[in-house]
């Protein structure tokens, strides 16, 4: 099934017939437009009013574009409708998809931009829209940044190693849960581990909290200093640190003797059942 059809099915499951009909009419109008940029922005701006109460209906399931799994759990019906409008617009005869996507992003408000970013991985030739993704990552809107960085396969699928590392680091910096970063295990690398190790040290120097999920990015390619940090937090008073260090350590293909010993000692002492389950997995 085409990406568009799959998204349309997920949309239909989240809304009623009235909303479905409204979207179909809008898509039909867009198909006839002369000025596709303006028509797309105008249609997009009307989406919430047209969908009414259905606009906030949440989607379920996932899509599987080339870049990886695209969970739909944070998409609402407005997001889906806007991406469907965008797909319709870039299929318009004679348009340059890259230009249309960029114009929509630039002309849209925060929620429209978030919808574009959510849908980038499922557009045809998604790598062409790399600049839009990067620009979204520079804007200090947490709503927009979350749309890019979490539950979105685009960074893992199309970013360079440096770009991907910056997405993860900024997610940690802004307090987001990198456990929801698609492709984190696959794209983990030594430089990312070092950046995370430095960030742990920086936070400790400032006597500020260390992000709980940082271990998921630090552990895969950690050096000796990183391992010492992880082992220390394996026994931390904060259960969330004990949980994430255990998860991160458990994902390693091999564990050093020091880490194995630390894990064994933790198994003997851990009282939280969910953490114990991870340790024993």
């Amino acid at each position, binding site marked *: 099934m085409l990406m568009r059809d799959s998204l349309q099915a997920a949309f239909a499951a989240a809304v009623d017939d009235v909303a479905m009909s409204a979207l179909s009419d809008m898509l039909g109008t867009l198909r006839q437009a002369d000025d596709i940029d303006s028509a797309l922005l105008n249609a997009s701006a009307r989406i919430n009013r047209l969908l009414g109460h259905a606009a906030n209906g949440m989607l379920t399931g996932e899509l599987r574009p080339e870049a990886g799994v695209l969970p739909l759990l944070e998409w609402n019906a407005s997001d889906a409708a806007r991406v469907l409008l965008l797909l319709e617009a870039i299929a318009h005869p004679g348009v340059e998809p890259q230009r249309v996507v960029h114009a929509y992003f630039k002309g849209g408000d925060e929620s429209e931009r978030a919808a574009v970013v959510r849908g980038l991985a499922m557009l045809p030739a998604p790598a062409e829209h790399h600049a839009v993704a*990067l620009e979204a990552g*520079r804007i*200090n809107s947490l709503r927009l940044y979350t749309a890019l960085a979490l539950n979105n396969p685009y960074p893992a699928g199309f970013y360079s190693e440096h770009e991907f590392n*910056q997405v993860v*680091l900024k997610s940690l*910096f802004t307090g987001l849960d990198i456990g929801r970063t698609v492709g984190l295990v696959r794209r983990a690398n030594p430089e990312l581990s070092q*950046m995370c190790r*430095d960030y742990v040290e920086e936070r400790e*120097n*400032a006597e500020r909290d260390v992000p709980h999920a940082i271990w998921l990015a630090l552990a895969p390619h950690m050096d000796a200093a990183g391992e010492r940090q992880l082992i220390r937090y394996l026994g931390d008073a904060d259960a969330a640190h004990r949980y994430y260090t255990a998860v991160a350590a458990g994902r390693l293909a091999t564990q050093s003797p020091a880490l194995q010993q630390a894990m064994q000692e933790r198994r003997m002492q851990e009282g939280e059942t969910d953490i114990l389950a991870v340790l024993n997995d």
Partner: protein
Amino acid sequence: MKYFDSHIHMLSRTTDDYENMAAAGVIGLVEPAFWQGQPRTQPGTFIDYYDSLVGWERFRASQFGMRHFCTIGINPKEANDVALAEQVMKLLPRYLEKDGVVGVGEIGYDDITDAEERFFAEQLQLAKEMNLPALVHTPHRDKVTGTQRTLALVREVGIPEHLVVVDHLNEQTLPLVLDTDCWRGHSVYPHTKMSEERMVALLKQYGTDKMIVNSAADWGRSDPLKVPKTGAAMLAAGFSEVEVEKVLFENPINYYAQSGRISLEEMSRPPIDQTQLYEQNSVLRGQQPLVE
């Protein structure tokens, strides 16, 4: 005690802040050009912003007993809009000649991209050619790498290191800069960056030479009185008043004095005359003008 805040974004602060800073002993400040919280999209936005830094904001400061200077540059975030940045670069030489401009800044890395590096290097080159100080922002994330890349670029461009202040340093990044002739900037914030206590610890450990402390106060959760508060913390920790004024008044002024447009000798509190206008605009809102 006299203070000078080397890095503060007064455009985002109120006149209450000017009054409170003046009352706390802050004589003057440098306001670096930076980003406004969301991306600028036109060169004209930069023109209007630069004009306000050398114009209205300088006047507004004077109306409350503060000497206002600024640095001009294109910041690392907006350097990533290459087409726009190229247009803005053409504006810089003109603005760098204006009264009250004491350096290029704030420049540097944000996400450490190729575009950021290009315009960082071009502006370091501009500072070198015009023999002006260059105020460098080290990134909020991946600070160690950003500082290392900064120092490498300074060497590559060949700007004299003593013209460069590397700002927003912390326990991890200050040692990197100590190996150079660059000045060492630190920003004290309520909840992020440095604190007064940590700053005092660094001064005790590394001394006071070329050490600069600022508030970097902006539109976020920040405190324009962090320089005097750091002074109080230094005194409480056993530093002398001479040492406090060295770090918090003399060092920043002497650093920017390399521009030839500011000096320790002239740095006194300006007399207030609120009958003055700037392009027919007044700071008064119905109150009686204060004239000293």
